[in-house]
């Protein structure tokens, strides 16, 4: 029966790409929830569950990425845009790595975040997740409506700028406070762990803009 499906391989691959993008959106939501849990309750069991969930998603996304890359090369699909699609998928995959890395750092180093900085951390995580969401939407539209990619990229840029403002303000507040210098630098590392995700999302959206232009020309 399998062989009788018209364009079956293409549909399967389209499905795999969609699932891969779903994994990134889902991991962004779980990341946000994990940061919220940590800020409210510290590194408890619920935080551990969220960390494990992001880990599992990252592994699944890795497997999907390899399968997609293998299929694109084995069946010499989209010869014109293959390099771009591979580049996009690989750079998107790294976002999940950044989420995972940040949550592992929370779990291993267990930073003590004073009450007054918690809203800043929460806002920063929210903004980073917004940037990633917009990026995933942009990536989805690259496959179907490349002309719409520019709209999503604009949003990614906006959220990244906001995230930068929040992280700068947060760092100033941390270094302006009375806590120990070692504690300050420790907290700064965590601001950067989270903010890096938005920076990376912006880098990916810059590449995506070029890929989309190449498709619309």
């Amino acid at each position: 029966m399998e062989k009788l499906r018209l364009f079956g391989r293409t549909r399967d691959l389209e499905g795999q790409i969609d699932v891969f993008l779903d994994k990134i959106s889902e991991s962004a939501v779980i990341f946000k929830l994990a940061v919220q849990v940590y800020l409210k309750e510290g590194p408890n069991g619920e935080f551990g569950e969220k960390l494990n969930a992001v880990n599992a998603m990252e592994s699944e996304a890795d497997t999907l990425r390899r399968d997609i890359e293998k299929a694109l090369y084995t069946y010499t699909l989209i010869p014109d845009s293959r390099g771009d699609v591979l580049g996009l998928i690989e750079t998107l995959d790294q976002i999940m790595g950044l989420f995972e890395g940040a949550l592992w750092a929370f779990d291993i180093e267990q930073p003590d975040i004073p009450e007054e900085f918690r809203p800043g951390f929460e806002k920063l995580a929210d903004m980073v997740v917004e940037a990633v969401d917009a990026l995933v939407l942009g990536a989805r539209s690259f496959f179907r409506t490349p002309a719409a990619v520019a709209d999503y990229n604009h949003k990614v840029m906006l959220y990244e700028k906001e995230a930068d403002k929040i992280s700068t303000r947060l760092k100033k507040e941390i270094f302006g406070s009375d806590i120990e210098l070692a504690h300050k630098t420790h907290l700064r590392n965590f601001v950067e762990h989270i903010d890096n995700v938005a920076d990376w999302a912006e880098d990916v959206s810059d590449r995506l803009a070029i890929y989309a232009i190449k498709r619309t020309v």
Partner: protein
Amino acid sequence: MDPSIIIFLTSGLFLGWALGANDAANVFGTAVGTKMVRFGTAAVICSLFVILGAVVSGAGTSHTLGKLGAISALPGAFMTALSAAIAVYTMTKAGLPVSTTQAIVGGIIGWNLFSASPTDTKTLTTIVSTWFICPVLAAVIAIVVYKGVTLTLHRSKLHLLRTDAYTRTALILAGAFGAYSLGANNIANVVGVFIPAEPFETLSIGGLFTFSSAQQLFLLGGLAIAVGVATYSKKVMMTVGSELGHISPVAAFVAVLSHSIVLFLFASRGLEAWLASKGLPTIPLVPVSSSQAVVGSVVGIAILKGIGGIQWRVLGRIVLGWAATPLLAGVICFIGLFFLQNVFGQVVN
């Protein structure tokens, strides 16, 4: 059957081989060059449909070539086809794009001049005018098709991978249509000059089908083209794919389809009869150059995307090649016939 027939037919078969090696690239070159279709797939489809087109619809254009010069003696036909084949081979070696149509027309005129036969100027004008109409028509069709295809793709919001899959299928279908049209339109170039000499006897298969001398020639010519496709066209396809510069798979499909439509228009007796029945002006059944058709199509797409994409020097070289081919074939034919008649003592007309 006289064994000398086979010897005289070799020049036509050589020309068929050259046509297969060169013109298959016009049909599948962009598809294979852009890696959308494998060479093996392209070669099998191309060979099959070229033979089919030649045997089923090859008669229309052959009739027109026959009017230009009815070469009644086999040695004369041999030299005409040989001069065309040498011209094609020389031009290809010189790196100039070449048309077998123009080569064979040059050869026939060479024969007419040598044998002091009058050249039917009306037919000649019709043929030569198609050399200008063909690329222009291909460009116009390419513009319309490209606009239609891109608009449909834009509106349908197909996934990139689905577009890719559909384009591959479309390239294979358009390629098959192109190969059929190439066989129908260009078989006259390969064996057309041998038809008036009627080298074969009509075969009857079980009393049900008759296989005329012309159809046997078309089959033989089709097979020669298929051998050319299988043995030598890969290199030319890769060159066409890369020389044209960057061409998207969708543009490649449009180029192949437009080229095929033009070749079909100039070969279809059915269409001619239909137009005539409606009282509309008919399209002359003339062997046109598939190279001109594909170049016209690509230029049409380039015009639509902005004229900056055209390399005028390359285009100039192509046009120069078109002018030089019939001249070269005519001169070779004239000199060759002189030797064939006076040195080898053959009757050439």
